[in-house]
Structure formats: C-alpha cells, structure tokens
C-alpha cells in the first residue's frame, strides 16, 4: 500500500527561506534509507504559495483564478514523499523517523495519507482506462 507524507508549510517555507545545510543533509540521509529499504516512490519540494495560484470552481460552473500567497501557512503543503509499505503501522514508523522538517527547536508537522489504489474501486470501463493512463504516465 502506498502512503503520501505531506510536509506542512510554515513561515520559513512560505518566505522561501532555504533549510540549513544540516537539515538538507539529514533529509537526504532519510530518503537514502527509504530508498535502501525499497520503500521510496517519489519525493519533491514545492515552491512557496506566493508563486502559485488557486482555481476556485463555483456552483454555477464559473472558475476564478486567485494568485498566491495563501493565508494559513499551516494548511499549505511545502513538499511530499510517497512511500510503498506493507501496513499503516510501517508507514507511521517511517513518518516518525523523518527529521523535523521545520528544523530543530521549531514546530514541525507532517501528515500521512493513504493513496487510493485502482483495486479500491469497483471494476468499470473508466477504471480500466485509468489503469492504462497510470501505466503510461509512471516512469518504468
């Protein structure tokens, strides 16, 4: 089963402050361990929300584009790591081992969420097509 570890944004990530070299090295080491365990699928950092945008879909079918930044840094995401593990417990174990993304002595938070697998859905033509798209989209 696959899980996504969402690294929450904070004032520093939203301000575009680079992590200290020590933290980057620790994060790299953590991902190295995930890779060695054969559990790492994907990981990326996101640029601050000030460089992003939101598209809001209204009930009347209208779309409005709102440029960032967005308030409530705690609700925003600064990066993610996707892992493949055997159980939710194993996913939590890995999440606990992640270095505090905010840096030592600061309040950091990550969220762990299970990804939907195609087997979770009732078989249908749409799901079959999604299977083909995923096979084509994912790097071999």
């Amino acid at each position: 089963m696959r899980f996504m570890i969402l690294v929450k944004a904070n004032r520093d990530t939203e301000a575009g402050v680079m992590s200290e070299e020590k933290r980057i090295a620790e994060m790299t080491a953590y991902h190295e361990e995930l890779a060695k365990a054969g559990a790492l699928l994907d990981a990326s950092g996101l640029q601050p929300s000030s460089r992003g945008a939101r598209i809001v879909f209204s009930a009347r079918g209208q779309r409005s584009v709102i440029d960032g930044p967005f308030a409530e840094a705690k609700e925003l995401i600064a990066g993610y790591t996707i892992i493949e593990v055997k159980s939710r417990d194993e996913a939590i174990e890995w999440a606990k081992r992640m270095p505090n993304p905010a840096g030592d002595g600061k309040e950091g938070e990550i969220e762990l969420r299970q990804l939907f697998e195609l087997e979770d859905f009732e078989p249908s033509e749409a799901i079959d097509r999604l299977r083909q798209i995923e096979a084509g989209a994912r790097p071999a």
Partner: protein
Amino acid sequence: MRFMMLMIPRGYETATPGTMPEAAAVARMMKYNQALQDAGILLSCDGLHPPSMGARVTFQGGKPRVSDGPFAEAKEVLGGYWMINVKSRAEAIEWASRCPAGDNEIIEVRQVQEMEDFPADVQEAAAGFETMQRGSAGR
C-alpha cells in the same frame, strides 16, 4: 517546469473512513486525465483516502508524536493531485481551469522545486537526491 495541481475538496476534512468518489465523478475526471495524457504533460496522478484514515506527526521538543485522523482543526485537506510538466505557469493554470471539478472544489497550482533552483552549497548537501526522487520501490 513541473507543477503540482492539488485538489482540495471542501468537506473532505470530515469524510468518514472508506469514503469513495462516485462513479460518475470518476468517469468525468477520466476524460480530463486522458486529455492531460494525450497532451503528453501528465507525470503522475493519485487520489488520497480521507484524513480520518490518516495520521499527523508533530515534532515538538525533538520527539515525534502521532495523532490519528480526522483532524478537528483542519479547514481544508488534500483529496488528490496531478503532477504535470508544462512550459509556463500560465499553461499550468490553463490546464487546472479545464478540470471538471465540482462545486466548491479548489485546485491549488504549485511549482515544484528543481535541483537547479538551489544554490551550489544546497545542491551539494542534497547530492544524490535526484536519483532518489525517482524512487526505489520498483512499481
């Protein structure tokens, strides 16, 4: 440049464990996924089970502390994402606007950090990370 389109469905923060999208919504979204695929810009896409099945880890005082979902204070949560590779921010926004999203759904468009965005010392500290990003679990 890579962009992540984050789907934020209002109300998903309180969805019960095992909540599934409706077949009609999946079929609608499939046409959109197909368009992304046909344009050659889709890198990956996934849906996330509701937060009531997830957990949060905080790191106060250097110790990891786990709280199980749902998260009472959450005003908005992630429901899924698309990773796309496009030529500009405007193109990413254009694609996000074409999504057949429902009432009160929001798509947040965020640019992904590439290694060359970082200064030399940071690149050095993160040496080898790009290879790791491609994963090792061999799906």
